[in-house]
């Protein structure tokens, strides 16, 4: 049985961090030391999970309305578009986010930072991208927190983003940062991306047009997934 197959996704050209980045201590025993095996893009890589449909609730993108009361902190709106490498919108695709509360504490049993938990904030949300690849979350600005990687190590404020895109090959987990954070230069996770222009793409932009008067500041964060080869592969079927 043969089935038509279109072109693969373009190989990453160095935007991503390496596996081994010794300044981020946890990479030292977890980075593979044998070279990666080049995988041709077959149906296994060109297809991918269409996950989350029917599971995403209407309020899942509002992290400030998951409890009886409102969470403490600076209310923000994070919105943007998910695009493929050729600038086309990625529609109807699941985004999952998680983050610390305004005090820099995760609602997670493993977080030992002695900052207060907020009974009105879990810090997890999800949504599907819309027709133009747009998404929108309402949340509070996460705090910075210490993490023990090195002496006096603090993570810059960030929101974790998980995206599927159209295929197994386009899966991406990343972090969104906030403009002008003084911790950038001290953070090995942020610095593990060697190209300064690529690092800039991890930083959201203050967005006055997305800011709602008397209510919340807006931040814009566009996410670009891998592009696809223009030329379809020959079908030898």
């Amino acid at each position: 049985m043969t089935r038509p197959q279109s072109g693969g996704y373009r190989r990453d050209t160095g935007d991503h961090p390496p596996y081994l980045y010794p300044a981020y201590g946890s990479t030292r025993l977890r980075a593979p030391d044998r070279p990666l095996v080049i995988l041709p893009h077959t149906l296994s890589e060109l297809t991918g999970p269409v996950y989350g449909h029917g599971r995403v609730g209407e309020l899942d993108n509002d992290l400030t309305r998951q409890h009886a009361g409102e969470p403490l902190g600076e209310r923000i709106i994070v919105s943007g578009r998910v695009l493929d490498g050729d600038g086309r919108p990625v529609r109807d695709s699941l985004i999952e986010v998680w983050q610390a509360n305004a005090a820099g504490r995760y609602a997670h049993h493993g977080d030992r930072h002695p900052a207060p938990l907020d009974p009105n904030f879990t810090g997890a949300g999800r949504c599907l991208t819309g027709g133009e690849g747009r998404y929108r979350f309402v949340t509070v600005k996460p705090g910075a927190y210490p993490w023990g990687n090195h002496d006096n190590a603090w993570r810059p404020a960030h929101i974790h983003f998980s995206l599927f895109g159209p295929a197994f090959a386009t899966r991406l987990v990343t972090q969104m940062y906030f403009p002008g954070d003084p911790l950038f230069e001290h953070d090995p996770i942020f610095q593990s991306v060697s190209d300064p222009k690529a690092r800039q793409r991890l930083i959201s932009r203050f967005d006055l047009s997305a800011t709602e008067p008397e209510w919340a500041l807006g931040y814009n964060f566009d996410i670009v997934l891998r592009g696809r080869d223009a030329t379809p592969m020959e079908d030898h079927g």
Partner: protein
Amino acid sequence: MMPDSVSTPSQTVGPFFHLGLLAEDGSRLVDLDHPSAIRIHGTVYDGAGEPVPDAMLELWQANAAGRYAHHEDGLEDLPPEDGFSSFGRCGTDDAGRFEFVTLKPGSVPGTNGQPQAPHINMSVFARGLLKRLVTRIYFPDEEEANAADQVLASIQDPAFRSTLVAHAARDGLRFDVRLQGERQTAFFDV
């Protein structure tokens, strides 16, 4: 020449991903009482041979007939398969262990139209992994198909190649993931 890249760089999932990614159990792709259900379990180890208690594994696989639930595989003529999910997700426990219950996928075509040996696509995420790792789970009862599989054949070192084949165990299949070291699992550049 490569076009100018604009992709958003990857960052680690960190240690607290359970909050956003594992609120629902995704480790059962099919019910355990399904007549063809198989258990695939294993442990994730780091380069010191220590279990990794904060990893997350994702599976993406074809159904038993070798079809992917996706429009690029002609979704319109895909027979519906009640009670089977082609996507799975499981975090490791304190001992680095994970377990999925799923169906063995059928064969899917490779780039040249030749059938590939049945396999499950796996992504590995963890604190300390700045980007995901990708591997494949092949099946021990498919010796002939495995021997003819292009992807397996592209790995010269037989010991390295064999890290991709699960082992038959009493209670299903065992597939350990070794992130680093002499017995490291083969990972792919996708």
